[in-house]
């Protein structure tokens, strides 16, 4: 079942049209990977899905993006509530300079959940969900910045799922990580997809092939091909996709 539906989405940075008539259905409990060369619009597209681009002056959106059938660009949309439902994990791990515990409890506290026992439960559940609990359960008061980069990224995932989102957007979540930490995040994604809808932007085509169920290939602001990952990486329908994934274009 589709969680997000995008219809004829155009996105402008002032006069520049960065996305051209993108239409895509994003399935729930699946991982959708967005690939393409730098500047092709894949990150811009990702950020349209929780209106993160709203914060950039001079930008404009046309078309429709719905979450569970409801238009997220409708005038009455509560953007804060939207971003609670559609969480985000960024390229570089960006934990707050606080303890491991406080990082995960940050979102729930902002939402007004203050009961200690509830917070303890949420922190544990989120850290377990991010496959980090066993490594940090005895060091919850430790400064989050003292963790390894891979652990920090999983902490950011724990922080994202602490507020119980429905969709997790990941913008190059492994590009700052070593291969082992990368594989840990990829394994984690397989567990997370059982509960969430995941959309990931990645430069690493092998990663897209390994982790995703669906792959979208962007080129110069257009969605050239969108299909089952198996199809895209074994017999893509478009010459441009073939050239890109075989390393002959881009």
């Amino acid at each position, binding site marked *: 079942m589709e969680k997000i539906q995008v219809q004829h989405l155009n996105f402008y940075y002032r006069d520049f049209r960065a996305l051209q008539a993108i239409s895509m259905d994003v399935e729930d409990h699946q991982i959708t990977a967005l690939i393409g060369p730098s500047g092709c619009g894949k990150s811009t597209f990702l950020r349209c899905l929780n209106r993160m681009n709203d914060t950039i002056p001079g930008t404009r959106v046309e078309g429709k993006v719905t979450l569970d059938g409801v238009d997220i660009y409708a005038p009455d949309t509560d953007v804060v509530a939207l971003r609670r439902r559609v969480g985000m994990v960024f390229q570089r791990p960006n934990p707050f300079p606080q303890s491991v515990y406080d990082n995960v409890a940050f979102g729930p506290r902002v939402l007004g959940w203050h009961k200690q026992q509830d917070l303890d439960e949420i922190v544990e559940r989120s850290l377990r969900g991010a496959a980090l609990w066993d490594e940090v359960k005895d060091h919850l008061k430790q400064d989050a910045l003292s963790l390894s980069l891979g652990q920090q990224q999983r902490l950011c995932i724990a922080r994202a799922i602490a507020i119980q989102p429905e969709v997790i957007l990941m913008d190059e979540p492994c590009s700052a990580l070593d291969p082992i930490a990368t594989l840990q995040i990829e394994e984690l994604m397989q567990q997370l997809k059982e509960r969430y809808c995941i959309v990931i932007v990645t430069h690493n085509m092998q990663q897209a092939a390994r982790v995703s169920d669906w792959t979208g290939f962007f080129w110069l602001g257009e969605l050239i091909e969108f299909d089952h990952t198996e199809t895209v990486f074994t*017999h893509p329908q478009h010459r441009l996709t073939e050239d890109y994934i075989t390393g002959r274009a881009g």
Partner: protein
Amino acid sequence: MPRETFDRELQRLQDEMLMMGNMVEQALTESVESLKHRDREQAQRVITRDRQINAKRFEIENDALVLIATQQPMAGDLRVIAAVLDLASELERIGDYAKGIAKINLMLGEGPLLKPLVDVPRMAEQARSMLHRALEAFIHQDVDSAKSIPLEDDDVDCLYEQVYRELITYILADPSTIQQANYLLWVAHNLERAADRVTNICERVVFTVTGEMVELGGGDASSS
């Protein structure tokens, strides 16, 4: 070109496979020639060279696996490599058929054949020619040729039927010919199987280009 090194390696892999194809073609031709001329030395050479064919197959397999492991090929490139792996094993089996024919020549001992070979060399030439063109179709990614070559398998099957009927006639007329006629029937059968395997190669060519697995020809080409 962003992938010059990879492209060069992929080309080399295909060249190796063509080389193996030439070795197999030669084995087919020479095995039947050796039988026709009762040349035991030539038969022995075919048998010895089959080891080189087998070694080439392993070399190609290894090179293909290294390319997969080190270059992470995708899509069309991946299909080419998968096809090379498959083709190498088909070629190896065709080489075995040739070796089998050479062995039969040795088993038949000295002395003339009960009849001059006419249709068997024709079968061998037809199978060899089909193989040669199938490999060319692979190199040139020529789907049309790949689809038309298996149709010629019917000619090989007809020749096989002819050889079969002829040898049965010999057996009925003179039961002392049973052993030799039986051996010659094996020869014809080997050639018939070789042509079937060319059909498998043609199916691979179509897969390489289109990504679709299709059954070509009317016979039992997919069975081994």
